[in-house]
């Protein structure tokens, strides 16, 4: 149970970073931390103590195996988070070129 709570704490740290930080690079890092927290949570869900990979073979019986589905899911979410992080970083670079700052409070030409 403790380990799930730690995942949740990590998630909250990431959320804090997104909500409270003023530097847009730190916001992107906060998003990364949130993604890691969810991925870690998924992996921990499928983990069994001393479990092994669920590969079928005729000569032995696998009694205690880890859940393979979360691992497949996490692989996909890692790719997705790569895409989003890349896009965010690209936008951040272009914003720096236009505004000459990373400070989110100074980037406010849009109003209302």
């Amino acid at each position, binding site marked *: 149970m403790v380990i799930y709570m730690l995942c949740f704490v990590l998630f909250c740290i990431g959320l804090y970073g997104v909500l409270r930080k003023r530097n847009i690079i730190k916001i992107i890092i906060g998003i990364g931390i949130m993604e890691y927290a969810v991925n870690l949570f998924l992996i921990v869900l499928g983990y069994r103590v001393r479990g092994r990979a669920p590969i079928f073979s005729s000569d032995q019986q696998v009694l205690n195996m880890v859940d393979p589905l979360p691992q497949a899911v996490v692989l996909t979410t890692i790719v997705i988070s790569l895409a*989003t992080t890349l896009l965010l970083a690209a936008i951040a670079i272009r914003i720096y070129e236009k505004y000459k700052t990373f400070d989110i409070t100074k980037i406010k030409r849009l109003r209302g």
Partner: protein
Amino acid sequence: MRQDFVLLFIIAPLFLAVGTALLGRTVKQLGFMLSCACGLILCFCSFMVFGLLQKTPAHIFIYKVGGHLPPFGIALVFDGLSSFMLILVNFISLLVALYSFRYMDRYTDKWKFYCLFMFMLAGMNGLIISGDLFTLYVFLEVASVAGYALVAFGTEAEDLEAAFKYAVMGVVASIFILLGIALLYSYTSTLNMADMAFVLATKPQGALVAFVSVLFLAGFGLKSAMVPFHAWLPDAHPSAPAPISALLSGVFIKTLGVYALARVFFNVLGVSQKALFIMMFLGTVSMVVGAVLAISQRDIKRMLAYSSISQVGYIIFALGLGTPLGILGALFHLFNHAISKTMLFLNSGAIEYSTDTRNMEKLGGLNSRLPVTGSTSFIGGLSISGVPPLGGFWSKLIIILAAVQAGHFIFALIAVLVSIVTLGYYLKFQRFVFLGKLNLGLSKIRGIPLSMTIPVVILAAISIVSVLLLMPFAGHFLDSACNALIAGNLYKDSFWSAIIW
């Protein structure tokens, strides 16, 4: 197998997008041709799905990808609601692709636009037909990432700022949704929606399901711009190129937000009174806040964006009523709003194309020069604000009747009042932009090419005749969509019987 064509919904836009990315730089107009072809194919396919559904006994059929049986394989589910959304999304995408032919002349690197456009289309189609939650999440992300990139497409300072704001909020929403999916997986050990509904019905509904509901409400609420989560929409929608604003406001927020919300809450989690009340409350707040903020806007697109928040509020409110009449009103309003708002955003693009400004105060008297744009905008504004005999009137009438029938008189009164406010700001828009004397400050007014007026005229015609959808002979289109939601938890039963069939 005769159902194999349904894979085209995902494959066709993805392949054509990659083709555009590879060859678009060398072959001029390839992107436009491919995206129009893609829109045509998918429009045809979605009508074929609709026809196929009418022949199947329970109005649902399942495509098993790779032949693996659910819940282990990936299932694509086609029921009334999916086919309703498919027709709407693909039809509007086709018109938008047609429109963007001349409009996109103002931008460089047009092939990138068409490439992202098709990725977005693939994401929306995949989300609509996916039968398990993780596939839904993946396509939601495909569509969202394409959306963030398209909002930043102009790469002006304002576009980038809006795109960053949108991307950060959208990614946080997606992570909430993923966390909700992970928690549901830990509780039910399955990702298939029907199987999950089955397991949830046998287990006690604990605090975990309530927590997951909150996560989904926040996640999908952010995607559909309900009011506490609406801050990104008025920046993001005006910053995108006009065809994309039309697509974002017309179908994007409805597919990613409203459709996914309805599917997950009605068919998987099962609606509870608390969740319905929260939806109703948030819907009403969105209605009021969106309409009030829209009044004082000077930028045409920004006003339309606030109006979208207000109208999505109507849809969420009607879904939150939970009665059959309310759901019918919600879906019919979704249809009407998609048609009218697409039309208005395309018109705002036409105004920008011919006068190079979107500021209402600098415009005036355009009716003499752009009669088609003026009259279609008038129809669109009247339809959204609910003036008979246009489509929007009937859907709002149904929503208000449903609210009265369910005994929520105060909410019904608010809906009527907001509708009057809506009429007010659309008349203001009409007055400032099209009526009166031609503003002398406008140095040159360019004519609008035919490829930009035809889609708008088609949409205007649909919004005039859309009341026919309520008639008995066209009833299946809306009714089978409503039945998919009204059935609620019975979704799982029809899913399993469809697999056997």
